[in-house]
């Protein structure tokens, strides 16, 4: 019923109106949630015999234990969700904002911030439903339109201990940061309106399907819910980083270079801001990876440790490479390295041992350094802030290495009859897994390339992608937002 209501209304009133319409949608969502009372403790006892009393006590205890466990996991998941939001704002916004020229700092930060707003609304209306609702192997459906049925009881398909609403908002934070990562590719030259339209469409047509395939019920690549090609991706190496990174490359090629690139020097206007951003990304990433355990059990610990080790080793890897090649390790290099490591460990965290994490991180650090220096200048595309070089490349190598290092001891994901545990990764003897990883990666690449090309084409036709060259010279802050990032003049 809502289903039919919405589109018509949308047609009738246009973009602004739909929010008010939610009024009508909202009673539905309530009745939905009413199906979902939180577990509560109770103790009935009618003229009890000793045994009955005890039965009652034990029954009460069982509910209370479930409640305690749920509270513990929920506490961790809520803080994890907050940490993942911290990654986008201010984390990523600062990381990117510091790398651009002064005249574009607000415009760049706004691109991340806008995702925090608009993706949230889309997710609430149908995005979550598309990604995690029941559907086919490629995409969910409209079952959870307006979050109908997304209440305070767990959805056993995803977790038996936390309210599915917690899961929904946690996943939302992923849906927010993924498109934001792309903005690094077309920095300093894209119209704000076009950026909005493109990224919203991208999150619907590229992110949601990919998330569904890898993590959704019945998803083609879902390793824990028996997908056809079980791809190991603990926290989003393919779903988040490959999709965004590859799409970033497509954007860089489609939009073309910034005026004067590479002739005019365009150094970061504040590596200090980027440094703050990178540190917040590191810290927030604990929520991103360890939170993906969907609870605060020991699996979260494994993922947490792997995340930290991967980041550290990658910072060292990138810095060493730079030190050897330029004679000096730079702060920008070190922070770029840690981000590369965090990207690469994302699919692996929760599957690999701490030592493997060190190796994966180190490889990723060196590899991404080579991508953003040698490879990028070799082909000469203007992936302005290296969204592809770090996220596309790092995500891809990370997904591959996950297949290599995944260990059934850390996470016995593949089980047979009677709980028999099968090997996870190549080193453990499951060579076949490499194939599945490749399938997952391939699908992510193809979906990202095709989806991005089509959407860019459409948006270009409708509103045009690039700002005028005058506006580009003037900077996004003034031309797109009518404000400036800094007022240092003493005359105020």
């Amino acid at each position, binding site marked *: 019923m809502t289903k039919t209501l919405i589109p018509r209304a949308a047609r009738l009133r246009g973009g602004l109106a739909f929010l008010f319409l939610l009024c009508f949608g909202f009673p539905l969502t309530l009745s939905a949630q009413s199906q979902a009372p939180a577990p509560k403790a109770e103790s009935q006892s009618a003229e009890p015999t000793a045994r009955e009393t005890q039965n009652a006590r034990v029954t009460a205890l069982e509910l209370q234990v479930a409640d305690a466990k749920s509270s513990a996991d929920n506490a961790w998941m809520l803080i994890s969700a907050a940490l993942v939001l911290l990654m986008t704002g201010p984390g990523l916004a600062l990381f990117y904002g510091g790398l651009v020229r002064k005249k574009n700092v607000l415009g760049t930060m706004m691109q991340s911030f806008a995702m925090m707003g608009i993706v949230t609304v889309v997710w609430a209306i149908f995005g979550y439903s598309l990604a995690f609702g029941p559907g086919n192997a490629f995409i969910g459906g409209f079952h959870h339109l307006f979050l109908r049925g997304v209440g305070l009881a767990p959805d056993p398909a995803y977790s038996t201990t936390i309210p599915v609403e917690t899961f929904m908002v946690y996943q939302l934070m992923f849906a927010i940061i993924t498109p934001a990562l792309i903005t690094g590719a077309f920095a300093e030259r894209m119209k704000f309106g076009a950026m909005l339209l493109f990224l919203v469409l991208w999150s619907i047509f590229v992110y949601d399907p990919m998330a569904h395939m890898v993590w959704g019920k019945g998803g083609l690549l879902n390793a824990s819910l028996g997908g056809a090609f079980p791809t190991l991706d603990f926290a989003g190496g393919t779903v988040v980083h490959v999709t965004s990174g590859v799409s970033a490359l497509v954007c860089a090629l489609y939009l073309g270079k910034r005026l004067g690139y590479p002739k005019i020097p365009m150094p970061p206007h504040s590596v200090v801001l980027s440094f703050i951003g990178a540190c917040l990304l590191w810290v927030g990433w604990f929520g991103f990876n360890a939170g993906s355990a969907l609870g605060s059990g020991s699996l979260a610990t494994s993922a947490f440790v792997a995340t930290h080790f991967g980041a550290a080793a990658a910072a060292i890897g990138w810095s060493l490479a*730079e030190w050897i090649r330029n004679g000096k390790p730079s702060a*920008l290099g070190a922070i770029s390295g840690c981000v590369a490591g965090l990207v690469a460990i994302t699919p692996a965290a929760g599957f690999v041992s701490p030592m493997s994490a060190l190796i994966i991180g180190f490889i990723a650090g060196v590899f991404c350094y080579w991508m*953003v220096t040698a490879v990028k*200048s070799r082909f000469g595309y203007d992936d302005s802030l*290296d969204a592809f070089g770090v996220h596309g490349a790092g995500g891809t190598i990370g997904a591959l290495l996950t297949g290599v290092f995944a260990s059934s001891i850390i996470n016995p994901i593949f089980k047979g009859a009677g709980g028999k545990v099968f090997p996870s990764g190549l080193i453990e003897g499951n060579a076949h897994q490499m194939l599945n990883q490749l399938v997952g990666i391939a699908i992510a690449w193809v979906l990202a390339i095709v989806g991005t090309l089509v959407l860019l084409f459409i948006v270009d036709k409708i509103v045009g992608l690039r700002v005028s060259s005058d506006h580009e010279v003037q900077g996004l802050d003034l031309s797109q937002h009518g404000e400036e990032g800094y007022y240092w003049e003493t005359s105020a």
Partner: protein
Amino acid sequence: MIKVEAVIQTSKLDAVKDALHEIGVEGMTVLEARGHGRQKGHTEVYRGREYTVDLIPKIKLEMVLADDMAEKAIEAIKSAARTGKIGDGKIFLTKVADAIRIRNDDRGESAL
């Protein structure tokens, strides 16, 4: 009256200021500048992209003086600002037609 403009190394500002005080030159205006000349710049590398920075931070001093003070000031600046290395900077002299003190209507040398 003569305007003395001196471009000096940023690290020499304090020394030059003190030297000028000693010979009684109080009034001056200081500007942040970047200079280009014989002195080679340096290169910076950001994610593999190399930039040659050939505009080097300098301090520009401007002071308008009575004609007879000019040479004294030049000496003071030279001795205080000199390191002997390329990049120590320059001093330029220009004739000034008149000077006015905004606070009161002093004009000419009495306005300095």
